[in-house]
């Protein structure tokens, strides 16, 4: 059993990465690299769904900052899904850090934030 799992789906304009399990210094960098590596260059950005993540530590927060920088360098945005009262919300509160990117409470809200572009017709 690996400590965390990343499931990736592609929305019309963005990549959605659902992260579950626990992220700490043992797997944070791998998680970041997996998501960035899977992001198509034509996507407007990434929705990082942390709503079902059970644990995030400072190493994980650090990696999320790094993801934001990498995406910004490619002109892409990072939106985090962090509902109130979730473990990730608490971790960020304890760290006193400003949120490492735009935050929404649900994946749908995050997707709405990206420009709607109709998928190419067949």
């Amino acid at each position, binding site marked *: *059993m690996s400590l965390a799992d990343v499931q990736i789906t592609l929305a019309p304009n963005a990549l959605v990465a659902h992260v579950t399990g626990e992220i700490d*210094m043992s797997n944070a960098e791998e998680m970041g690299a997996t998501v960035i590596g899977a992001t198509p260059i034509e996507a407007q950005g990434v929705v990082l769904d942390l709503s079902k993540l059970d644990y995030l*530590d400072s190493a994980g927060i650090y990696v999320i900052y790094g993801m934001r920088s990498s995406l910004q360098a490619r002109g892409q945005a990072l939106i985090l899904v962090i509902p109130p009262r979730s473990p990730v919300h608490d971790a960020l509160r304890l*760290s006193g850090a400003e949120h490492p990117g735009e935050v929404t409470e649900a994946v749908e809200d995050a997707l709405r934030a990206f420009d709607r572009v109709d998928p190419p017709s067949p």
Partner: protein
Amino acid sequence: MAEADRQQQVRRPRLGTGQIALESAEPIAEPSEQVRSSHRFSDPALSELSLETLLDELLNRTQEALGVDTVAILLLDGEAQQLVARAAKGIEEEVERGVRIPIGRGFAGRIAAERVAIFIADVDHADVLNPILREKGIRSLLGAPLIVEGTLIGVLHVGSLTPRTFGQDDLAVLQLAAARAAPAIERASLRAQLAHEHSVSVALQRSLLPKGMGEFTGMRVAVRYVPAREEVGGDWYDVIELPRGRVGLVIGDVVGHGIAAAALMGRLRTSLHAYAIEGHGPGRTLELVDRFIQSLNEPAMATAAYAVFDTYNSMVQYATAGHLPPVVVSGAEARVVEVTPAPPLGAFPYGRIPEHEIGLAGGDILFLYTDGLVERRGVPLSDGIDALAQSVRGAVSAEEACVAAVADLVPLEGLRDDVAIVALQSSLVPSELHLRLPAEPKTLAQVRRILRRWLVERGANEGDVAEVTIAVSEACANAIEHAYPPAPASFQLDAWGNNGEITVAVRDTGQWRSTRGQNRGRGLSIIVAAMDDVQIDRLDSGTEVVMRRRLRQT
């Protein structure tokens, strides 16, 4: 204490007492007729035999050379640190019941641990663990370790149904047999392992515990599979590691026998495992397996139970589809946990399978089994289940519960039906933690599992658990970062509590490194924000972080 005395006795040969250890280094007197006849052990043809034939041949030759009633070969299961009966003559039940002897305990266990030959003049007055030796009426025993290039691979022992004093000549013969047999067994085992990889039936019959699952933080698991004497059966067990410190235990039994039942068992085991790791609860998991059976469009039915043990709070979520009730061992007591079972899988389409909760105290054992263990012709099933509860009560470990149940309930003549057992013991949580841990990133997840369980046991509420866990994990991450050469790669975690306040100390032996970027600084902010009081001492010998928090509780 008695145990220490006994060990002393083993080391200092004393005639007339129960046991005499015969050090293998002792010079052996004149070779006798017996010893000369034992050249047969060095027969080069032995090295060409398959493992089964080789073991059989060795048993025959040993029996003949020593004129004994019983001979047994037990081989080491290194992972479990147990001896497993592998071949026997005169006491074939040892092998059929899959007797397992922990290293260091009983007759064979001590031979293995101390690597000396042991002679037992009178079995009745000796520390003999294996009940079969007594049941068969063996009076005297002599055993020697099997060693290949300094590595212990097993034990060879012989027995006599009449009292017999085994002397130096007998020992010489046995040791010669052991010395010749060990390398041949080692070679044949390696060959056999390769062959087994291609043998589906063996994989089904002797599926092992997933690696490292024997000793998971917060619990211990033991398993058994005892095949039926004649036919292949459809019983199975499974142990599944799940997220958030949970472990799934599966026990199941496909209705019917033979290859078809075994094949269906393989499919059900896989489908249940696949649904379980998707995170479904036990009830839903069984419902999905039921749907899977229905989709096969062939007459197929099975009973199964799926239990999810949560190491954080020692609770079990349990669901059963027509399976026999589990037994819970609590110290000297054992109770049968009766829940209303749903119908067997494949019986009716689209049934709902409810979940039940079973609380385990630290040290309690949850024992799941299949009907082959408790079903006897002409005896009501409930009597068999009661006999099982009687047998396992008082067991101090999951392993011991398995040993007792198999010894007491598997008949000497073998089984008509196969038996699968999976038993889990919830660990006792110590009131204080004193852990020396490897300074590696993967240690952090283990620390959090241990700490969460410990905190729950101390009465911490959800918020306490989450915040203390992240603070301590951050402190440990610091310790792991400090552990760079030449500092030893480990750190110390101590935790204690009184009057609703807990204290956790993390000590490393590395030099404190000034905050590296925002990352570590953020780790420190988390520690300070989560705990009421934090002291950091940077000493020449290392860094110590002592954190206190009053539990909010519920």
